[in-house]
């Protein structure tokens, strides 16, 4: 799977991989590091995603999260990641004033935070193993670390939900050691975002929210929460969050963004 980059400058080694897991597709683009160590770290990162899926899948009756919900396991009997996710969920609920919720149809469902967290963790694992540039895309939510090569930042296109195949903007990670880009919307999977107050599909004047922040765990959770809030409340809430920028596409086909997003466009 390793492919040497073809740029003439002394470019770092490149490792690419695509994996179907958690009901979606993850793609890895890893630059630099010692090739054997990178290969091993990539295998570990992929195995980690499958493990997360086993532990946290609400679709599997035998997952720890399902057994926890039925009272067959205590949190202490689960993998330590379960307690960590519980903590992150309650933090997300608190910081979003309840708009992010890990309760769905009366049971604990941490799905809204697990994927972003797992994607971020996979990227950081590769950095820890020596990669100088990491780009992990977990089903359209992207964690970037480092740079892809000399004098070039990672660049992420934000797909335009109203024009299939087109981009609404391009976000650059220039000047950051770590940047995440997460999008929530109705475009592809329909109305899968639930209003925690009603338990029904969120009725919103937005078609997509893209959040740009250092960590994908939060970028993903905030995109979901802001989508349910709607354009006005979502935008002003996102504007209030530190180190967080956002781009919102409204039902009226307008693109709106936080004040600092322009500095991240490239």
């Amino acid at each position: 799977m390793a492919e040497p980059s073809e740029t003439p400058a002394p470019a770092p080694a490149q490792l690419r991989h695509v994996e179907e897991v958690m009901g979606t597709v993850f793609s890895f683009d890893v630059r630099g590091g010692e090739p054997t160590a990178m290969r091993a770290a990539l295998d570990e990162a992929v195995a980690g995603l499958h493990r997360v899926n086993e532990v946290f899948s609400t679709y599997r009756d035998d997952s720890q999260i399902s057994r926890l919900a039925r009272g067959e396991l205590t949190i202490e009997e689960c993998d330590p990641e379960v307690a960590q996710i519980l903590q992150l969920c309650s933090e997300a609920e608190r910081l979003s004033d309840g708009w992010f919720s890990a309760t769905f149809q009366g049971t604990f469902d941490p799905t809204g935070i697990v994927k972003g967290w797992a994607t971020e963790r996979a990227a950081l694992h590769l950095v820890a193993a020596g990669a100088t540039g990491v780009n992990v895309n977990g089903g359209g939510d992207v964690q970037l670390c480092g740079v892809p090569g000399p004098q070039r930042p990672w660049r992420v296109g934000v797909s335009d939900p109203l024009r299939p195949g087109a981009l609404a903007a391009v976000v650059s990670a220039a000047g950051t050691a770590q940047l995440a880009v997460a999008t929530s919307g109705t475009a592809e999977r329909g109305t899968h975002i639930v209003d925690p107050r009603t338990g029904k599909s969120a009725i919103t004047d937005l078609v997509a929210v893209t959040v740009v922040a250092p960590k994908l765990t939060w970028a993903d959770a905030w995109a979901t929460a802001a989508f349910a809030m709607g354009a006005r409340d979502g935008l002003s809430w996102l504007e209030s969050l530190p180190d967080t920028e956002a781009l919102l596409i409204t039902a009226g086909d307008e693109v709106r963004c936080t004040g600092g997003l322009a500095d991240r466009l490239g």
Partner: protein
Amino acid sequence: MHALKKNRPLRRIVLTSAATVSGVVLVLSLKPHTAPALASPAPSPSTGAVALPAPSGSASSGPATGTRTATGDAAQTRYGPVQVRVTVKDGRLTDVTAVTYPQSSPRDQRINGYAIPRLGSEALSAQGANIDAVSGATYTSEGYRQSLQSALDSLGR
């Protein structure tokens, strides 16, 4: 290569839009450290959409041929009703148009943040835009196969 290369050109383009777009220029209140005026891009008649609610009968099964349209039920938002019309051609969704959507009051526009122009179509192919990844509404496996991201991955860039 495209319109949003750097911060300053972005602002210049936004201001140019403000100067040239007649009719629907919306002057927004701004933070002191930003450009003095921003404009909402002129809505083009064929665009504008929302994906709520899923129109009934939109599921295309079998080798559907021809062009069909369906208008969804109006969904109530706190800003007013939203209603969309979808066009399906040969089983593929080709257009989503908002036939009804909230017309923001001037007060709403002031707090709706910063409008930016969409990228021009010349910048929109994955190959042309020199991008490494695509962020979009969560990809299902099937959606991924149809997406720009899979094009990027297959290119091995």
